[in-house]
């Protein structure tokens, strides 16, 4: 088990999305399972895209560099992406099916979460933050940056785009809405700066979430 990441340094994209998608203290999910899965799958693909290993383009995911990387989960995903050709939407649905479990386990391995046993037989087990402060940190960093009007790096922009795409921006940006509502209006302009492959990823995620909602299968 590796030690938890030092405070101040950003964690992995999917880890941040995972923490934001759960209540900071109880670990209760904030999104319906399927929508959270789509968002986490997009965040995992986003990690690969940010590190230049894949590029979402023309509705699919192109593999640029499939060489082994430090992360075991990323390695397995690259293996899939290399072997089969599918539309991005298919990949989101496929990875989305297990992304919750996979990211949760990865974070347990990194010492960020512990798996709490279920309280009642019909309830699912919960992922609870290993230390106070860990869970709230990504939200606090993003909100602070938005409130101060700081320039967001590519990673934060992509995270913001995925929050938008899944509807998770509503609870996560609560503090911004309270203290600096006009900062919300700058988000659209900021998101317009996303590089095309990353904008494609958030667009595909938003479309997948919209379709899941329209069929009420979420």
């Amino acid at each position: 088990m590796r030690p938890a990441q030092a405070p101040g340094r950003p964690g992995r994209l999917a880890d941040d999305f995972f923490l934001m998608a759960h209540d900071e203290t109880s670990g209760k999910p904030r999104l319906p399972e399927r929508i959270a899965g789509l968002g986490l799958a997009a965040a995992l693909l986003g990690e690969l895209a940010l590190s230049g290993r894949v590029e979402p383009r023309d509705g699919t995911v192109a593999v640029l560099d499939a060489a082994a990387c430090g992360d075991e989960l990323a390695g397995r995903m690259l293996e899939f992406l290399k072997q089969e050709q599918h539309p991005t939407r298919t990949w989101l649905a496929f990875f989305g099916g297990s992304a919750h479990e996979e990211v949760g386990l990865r974070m347990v391995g990194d010492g960020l979460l512990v798996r709490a046993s279920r309280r009642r037989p019909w309830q699912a087990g919960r992922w609870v933050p290993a230390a106070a402060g860990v869970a709230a940190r990504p939200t606090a960093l993003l909100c602070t940056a938005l409130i101060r009007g700081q320039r967001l790096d590519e990673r934060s922009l992509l995270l913001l785009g995925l929050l938008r795409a899944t509807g998770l921006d509503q609870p996560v940006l609560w503090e911004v809405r309270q203290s600096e509502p006009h900062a919300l209006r700058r988000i659209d302009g900021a998101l317009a700066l996303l590089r095309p492959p990353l904008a494609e990823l958030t667009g595909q995620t938003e479309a997948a979430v919209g379709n899941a909602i329209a069929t009420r299968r979420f």
Partner: protein
Amino acid sequence: MARGSLAQPGSVSAALARDRLGVPSVVYFVLAGVAPLTVTAGVITTAYAVTGLTSVPAAFIVVAVVLSLFSVGYVAMARHISNAGAFYAFITRGLGREAGVAGALIALLAYNLLQVGLYGMLGPAVEGYVQQKAGVDVKWWIWALAAWAVVTVLGLIRVDISGRVLGALLTLEVLVIAALTVEGAMHPAGGHVTFSTLNPGELTKGGIGAVLAIAVLGYTGFEQSPVYAEEARDSRRTIPAATYFSLAVIGVLYAAASWVLSLHYGVSQVAAVAAQQGPGMLFALGSNVLNNAGQVLFMTSLFAAALAFHNACWRYSFALGREHVLPGSFGRTGVNGVPKTASAVQSAIGLAVILAYAAGGWNPQNDLFFWLGTTGGYGILILLALTSIAVVRFFALERAGENLWRRLIAPGISVVVLLVIVYLCTSNYSLLLGYTKPSMPGKVLPSLFALAAVVGVGWALYLRSRRPQVYEVIGMGPDAATGHGTATPAAAPAASLAGEGA
């Protein structure tokens, strides 16, 4: 999906297929929205009563054939476009974005009319039942408001059980209709069995437009099957099979039940009995237990239909909100994944209509259920005709690997037949509403759709000049986020994903 599915490559399609809908599930979703008992007890009896015509069974058969022909091109084109659960997506791709927005507003109006109309039958049905069982007299609109409140709450919270409950109720509905039909057939009036009302030749005797329009109303909901394309195990086969199977099931149920009504009460008497007894004439075919079960299920069926059309309404406004054709708030969802604005606006419309009818003291069954329901059905008829034309034009521009029968012959025939029915309805609208001569409502109600079309075209022209990014993605629904415009069908590959090498 099971944990550890990221274990072996080569299993993407297979893993996804496991989680997807087969033909029976899609048929269940579709039929739950059609609500067969609502039509059998509510629409058929009202059709007899209002039009006084005995060609109702024949009309159901003719319309089943017409809609099957329509579906050939409809499900074929659904494979090639995004947002394929919505008529306006077809109209946009086939006839352009201006026609598309016009179609979208016609659909929003039609589904809202169908939805609010149901309160006009549900309220009196509960009122009558409670009066009969408990002797308590509570006004219809109080029950309608109660049903409205439940629809509103279910619309705003996420309920996972509703699918299963609706499925169970649907099964019971179909069984009860079948049992009532068999019981009625065993006791024909005067001991004679006659098939005359099933003969399509009957339709030529008059009022053909009115009867056909009401029959189309009965099938409304069948068009929802492509909504599940992306969820289907193999959308190329699952969606067409589910569409035809749904049409066949309800076609047989409606034709048989309406024929048995004419058989049991006598061809010359059936309209008069319908005028006197309403939905009760269907339940009276059965013994006490069956009669009672039928009445209870009629109420749950009406409720299920109200919920289904509520969903159809928010689905349309949600898709339009995602495109920003309607304000973006319609396309936003709360944290529980529910499009609150889209759902709440439909509920507000329902509340306003119920209160207006209660305050005006108008007849709920006739002026609310039948008039608004029929007008909604007429709107669906217009959309079917427009969609057929769009299918022909779409395949004239790109063949997309479909054969001549799917591209031209079947949709071509359905264009001609649907346009004739639209013409007959429009010219006899007062008769359709139960008037014997031209009337004010007969002019006003169909004109609403012309108004919706004009506003739609105007709005599309405004978007073209002022907000070209929005204009570009008209018709794409949730896929508007991919920003590809209608030139690249983003959903087509995704829709057939489970078919590839699964």
